[in-house]
Structure formats: C-alpha cells, structure tokens
C-alpha cells in the first residue's frame, strides 16, 4: 500500500513539474519524437489536450521508475543503471503506443474529411 501512495504522490508532483516547468522551457519535443517514432508525416498540432496527455505520460514513466528506485534496496551506483534501462524501455514503449493511437486518429480524421 505504501508503494501505491508513493506512486500517487510522485505522479502528481511529476505531472505538475512536467506541465508547468518542462513544457514551458520546451526542453522535450515529444511531438516530433512521436512523429519520428511512429513515422507520422503530418505535423501534429500542439493543443492543450496533447500537452496534458504527454505530461501525464512523462509523469507516469518517471514516477514508476522513482518508486522502483526508492524501494529497491541497492546502492545508487547499481540502481541508476537499472533505472536507465527501465526508463529506456518505458519511454520507448509508452510513446510508441501513444504514437500509434494518434496516428490512427489522424487517419480516421482525414478519411472523415
């Protein structure tokens, strides 16, 4: 249960940090990343909804890895490389799934027009 609470708290904090700081600083360019990852040719309109979704995804990835890193009883030197691999897998898979959903939506939109 403790892990769940930790996850929820971290998730909220990370979402706020990502949405209010990282998005403002424009450090991450998720939309181009998704386009390249899922081979979407059209540019994606950066709407508020899309920003919220990408922040939710980022917060999900970071908080899952943070909860794992805090609770696993290992030295930081071992935990960080493991976290690196975990993050790699999560970023790739989560954005791949989301990119495919977005791609299908865009296709559906185009055909309806």
């Amino acid at each position, binding site marked *: 249960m403790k892990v769940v609470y930790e996850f929820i708290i971290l998730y909220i904090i990370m979402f706020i*940090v990502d949405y209010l700081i990282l998005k403002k600083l424009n450090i991450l360019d998720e939309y181009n990343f998704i386009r390249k990852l899922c081979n979407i040719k059209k*540019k994606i309109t950066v709407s508020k909804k899309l920003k919220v979704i990408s922040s939710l995804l980022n917060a999900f990835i970071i908080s899952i890895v*943070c909860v794992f890193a805090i609770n696993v009883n290992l030295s930081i030197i071992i935990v*960080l490389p493991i*976290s690196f691999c975990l*993050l790699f897998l999560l970023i790739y898979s989560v954005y791949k799934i989301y990119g495919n959903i977005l791609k299908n939506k865009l296709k559906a939109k185009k055909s309806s027009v």
Partner: protein
Amino acid sequence: MLLLWNSFLGIEEGIVSLLLLIDSTLYWAFSKLFSLYVELASARIFDINDFDNLIHNVYLLIGVVALFLILYLLLKNMVSADDKASSKEILDIIKRFIVAMVLVPLVPVFFDFLYDFQDSLLSNQTITKLMLGNGDVSTTGNVVELQDENGNPIYGDDCKATSLEEAKQSCTPLTSTVDMNSNELLKDYGNQAAYYIMSGFLSPEDGWEAEDIHTNASKYFNLKHNWKWAKIACAIGGGIATATVVVLEVATSPATGFATLAAVPATVVSFGTSIAGACAIAAGSSLLIDGVGYLITYDDYTWKMAELEMITTGDFSRITSFAENITGGELHYTPVISTIAAIFLLYMMFSFCLDLGVRAVKLIFFQLMAPICFLISVIPKKKDLLNNWFKLVLTTWLEVFVRIFCVCGVVLFISMLDYDSLKNNFSTFATAILILGIVTFAKQLPKLFSQVTGIDSGNMKLGIKEKLAEGGAFTAGAIIGGGATAFTKNLANKWGNKENWKDKNGNVTAGSILKNVGSGLLSAGAGTASAQFRGGKAGLNAKSFGDMKKAASKGATDAVNARDKRVNYKAAHGGNVVGAMMGHMKDFGGSVKNFVLDESIEGLTRESQCMGKVVSKYNTFNDTIENLLEKEQAKGNGSLFLGNGFALTNYAAFDAAAQNLATAKAHFNNGTISAAQLRAVEGAYIQARDNVRDELMNMSLEGTKGRAYQALTAKGQAALKDSLVNAESLQATILENASSKVVQDIMGANGNNALNDIINGNSLNVSSFTHNGSKLKDAAKVAQGQAEIKIAEMNKEQAAKGDKSN
C-alpha cells in the same frame, strides 16, 4: 586648589580609563570573533552521513528525472539517426554519461579531500604564519613571581623557613613562565590579531621598554579618596552657586525681586539637576576607579605582563590599569581612532562570520547537487553545467582563505607601521589617519585581491544589511511582526467588545465568557497565521528595516481586512456558517465553470485579442484584393487574371456584372430605372465580386507554388505581389493564435482543417474556413462582440458580489 588639581587629574585619568575600557571590550570581542571565524572555517558544520537516507532518496529522485531527460534526447536522436550529426551526438551523450557515472562516486572523496586540506591549512595557521610570522613581541620565556593577596612572595612546600623574613632570605619564590611560542599561544589566532591591531594605537613611548612600565594600584585608592572629596566639593559648590544666583536676582532687580523669588523653586530644581548630574559623574568615576582598582591584584604589574596576558588569555581588560601611565607619558595612546578602527574591524569580522555560515551550507548544497549536475551535464545543451559546478565549489571553498588573507593583511600592515618614524615626520593625527586608511583599505582588499589573482572570491560585500536581506531575516521579521500585530488586533476585536461577553439573552454567564475566550483565541490564532502568510508574502523582497516594518503592517492590515470581509460575507449570507458555506459553494461552482470553459475575464479578453489580431490581418488582405480587382476592372485590365484555364474562372461574370452596374447607374441617373432595380444590380455585382475575390484569395493563400498563380502572366503575378505578402502574414497570425478557441472554431469546425493546412504547410483554401470568404470577418466580429458582452457581464457580476460582501 590642590583639591581641584587632583580632581582634574582624576577626571583625565577617569576619561582615559573609560576609553581604555571601551577599547578593551571591543578588542576582546574582535579576538573572540576572529577565533570564532577560524573555528567556523575549520568546522564541518554538517556531516553528509547524517543525511544518509535523505540524500539517498533525493539523489535517486533527481537522478531518475535527469536520466529521463537524457534518455529522451538519446531516443529522439536515435529515431532520427539518418542524420550524421545525430549519431555523433548520441556517441557524445553516451561518453559523457559514462564519465558522469564514474564521477558520482568520487564526489564524497573529493569533498573529504577539500575539507582535510582546509583543516590542515587552518590548524597549522599557514596563512597567518606566512603573513605574520610567529609573533614579534617576544620569543623568550617571561618569568613572573607568584604573590599572595598582600603582595608577598609565595614559597613552595620545600621552604622550611618559619617566618616571611626568613623565607625571603633563604627560599626562592614560586614562579610562572609564559612562553610566546607555546602551542597554546599559536592556536590563539584571535588574541594575537587583536593584540597586533591594538598595539598600533597603544604602545610604549620612545625610550620606554614594556618591562619598565609599571602600574601602581595604590594610586587608584588615593584617587578614590580624592573622588570622595570631589563629590563633597561638587555638592557644596552647587549649593553655594544656587544661593548666589537667588541673592543676585533679588539684589539687582528689587522691583521684580519678589516676582523672581516666585521662580526660585524652578531655579533651585534646575541647579539641583546640575548638581545631581555632576555628582553622578563623580560617583560613576569613583565606581569606575573602584572597578579598576579591583582588577589589579598586585602592585607591580608591567606592560609586558599585560601584553602576554592579552595574547595568551585574551584578557584585554588589563589595559585599563595603565591610564596613569598614559597620562604620565609612558605609554602612547591614540584614543577614539582606536575605537573607530575596532568597531570597523568588528563589523568586518561579523560580516565574514555570516559569510562562513553561508559557505558551510553552500558546500553541503554543492555536494548534494553534484550527481544531478553531473547527470544533467550529459545533455548537449547543458555541457557547461559541470564546469560551473566545479568553479562554484572551488570559489566557495577558497572564500575562507581569501578572507583570512584580508584580515591578516590588515593586521600585518598595522603591525608593520614604524611609529617612531611616523611620529617624527607626521603629527599624531596624520598617523591616526594613516591607520584608519589601512582599516578602510581592508574593505577594498577582497575586491582588489579578486581582480589581481583572478580568483572569484564570492560575494565579498561587507554590508550586513544586504546579507540579512539575502538571508530572509527581514522577511522573517515581517512574518513575526505581522503575526504579532494581527494577534493583538484580533484578540482586542473579540475581547474588547462588551457585547461579545454576553450570551443571547444579554447576560454575562460562565458559558458566554468561556465562549468568547475560546473564540478570541481562535480568531487571534487564525489572524496570526493569516497575517504571517500575508506579511511574509509582502516582505519577500524586504531589503531594510523600513521595508520589514511596512510588510508587517501590510500583512496585519490585510489579515484584519480579510476578517472583516468574512464577517460581512457571513452577514450577507444568512448570518450563519451554513449560509456562508453555501455562498462559497455557489461561488466555487461558478469559478469551476469559468475555469473549465475558460470564461474568466482574462480568458475572454485573451480570446478577444486573438480574434482582433486575426480580423485585422484578414481585413488588410481582403481590402488589398478588393481594391486590386476594382482598380484593374476599371482600367479594363481583367486579362491580368485570366491565365491558361487555372486562373479566375469567375472573372468574366464579374466583368459583366461591373458593366451592368455602370449601365444601371447611368439609367438610374436618367430616371429610367428605379432605386430598387439599381439595388438588385448592385447585389448581383457584389456577389460576382465576392466570388472572384475568393478565387484571388485562394490563389494568394496557395502562394507562388500554386497552379493558378503559375498560370498567370508575369504582369498578373506582379499585380498580386502585395496580396501574397498579406496572405502570408494572415497565415502566420492564425498560427500564432491557434490556441484561441474562437480562432479554432471560426477557422474550421471539422478538426481544425484550416489550421492543420497551415501547420502542415498544405495549400490553404478559403473554403476550409467554416465561415468562408467575407463571412469570416463577420463571424469574427460576432465572436469578438460576444466575448466583450460576456466580459461586461462578468465585471458587473463581480461588482455586485463586492457590494454584497461589503
């Protein structure tokens, strides 16, 4: 006369004693602060191991976020790996990541080394020894005979003499040796520094050796005796003076003499005050001399012994017993200047001590942040972060040495002054100015040192006020002040009102008293918290005591106003808690609705502004094309827009409608057709013109690569030059304001087609707009108007709410 002369001598010695007492206190404080400074510098205030668990978790959390950012960039570059630059960047990132992972475990080792090296430099007094040497007062041991309270020598148990006289002849008195070079002495940085500086202002005169300057305690007891007479003399003198004034007043002015007599009590009181003042000074001086006399434990006390005691024990109070030697010309003393110098040095040391406190925390912070800096520096754009971190750590670490160097510099310069030569060439005042010059130079030394060596020595400003402001001391003051004021005001509001002590029936009962006591404390507590928050917010940038006071006052006033507003709101909503809660819930519901629909005044204003920009651009674009069409049609240059099949298909109809309109106008002027018939022709002309205009707009929006544009003649393309520029400008404005809901709505109801066209660089068609052609303008105006109406309504609502709550 002798009594008066003795009194005068007593006053002079009393004043010198007083000045020496002040100086001794200041130099004692300086020596303690200097020692504290060295202790603070060498002390490792926090041990990183104390925060093991916290650090572990913080490292992990920030480390994961840093890793996330790195991986994101890595993946982004990997998915676009077709680019050579990207693959180079990937390799660069991996290389720096490995370096960071190697550096992270080395951080504690690096900091341990820095602290150990610092400890070794400070404990061995390397800088002090380099600059000041091992002390130049005396390098040989100094033997002092031990004496009892009567001033007789003390002998050891091995002395078998039966009387004091016999012991004096046959035994050797016990002695104590104080050695300047003992370890104890070397560790006493502060005493040495204070002594060096003080010796610049208080030292033996020419021809006098420290060992030859003796102080005599019995003199002080004589002085005390003289002061007793002085006290009696001042009382008698005061009485005689008062009587003389009264007698003279009556004698010189007999007519008003009795009137003057009426003022006698006032005169007596006035003189009485003077006498009391004079006697207070006499009594104070007598007490001071008592104190000085008390400090002297044996008669034969030399300046040499005082010097040694100052350096070894830091007891500067001994100098007060040398007032007589100063007035007697044995010791040279520069009063006032020595006090000013001591005050300045104290200020400097206090400021440096504050810096050291900050430095200790800074170093811990840098140590904590090290892994994060290392990991973030992996990101290509953040390469400099690692260098900045190293620079900051080294600069902060070096701060302590730069400051010690500065203090030692001042001590060195003052101790190096050749007073004999100075006294021969300059006046005492000029020498004092020179010493003060050295002290003032200390203020500039850090900056000069930084400029000469290139070592950034951190914030070397001496201003304690700025440091307190930076540290948030004034903000804390505003919080405390605001809280205290609101506490008092809220308590007074509850307890100060008689009605509050009564129950519903107007009677004072135990229950009503208890209730008011409780609600008063509750209100005061809530008010304090509220005022503390508001005071803190207002005092966030407080830079002085004035700002702090203002912020505290503002916090308290705002808290009290908020309380009054709450009371009024409650009264306006049924006068009970439930009513007020319902009111707040209703307001909250409205706020949520506004938030979700972005119907706040700010949101609507923003929307209106976005729409205004788009409409303005559209108008310019529209007007350019309409003017072009009408001008060229009037000239008969319609062929300009007739290309090879892709150009304006509606131009022929427009040309015909324009000719019809011209004919209809002529007929109307002749009276052959009615106004209604003319209007019908005009309507057909406008319709035809709009069709052509839309075609021209699309042509311009497609740009120079569009097929229709390509089909035009060179002359036709040249005529469209301005329209092309305006079309581009319109698209850019739409893109800039794409987040506006009104813009999105008007541009395309079905999936923002027009916007997507612009964003994706596709050819934009006027028909992509929901309200194509001229209707776009109208729709935008309607949307703008609606937003403005809503803003007005909301302003009205807010004003009504304000009235209700007041």
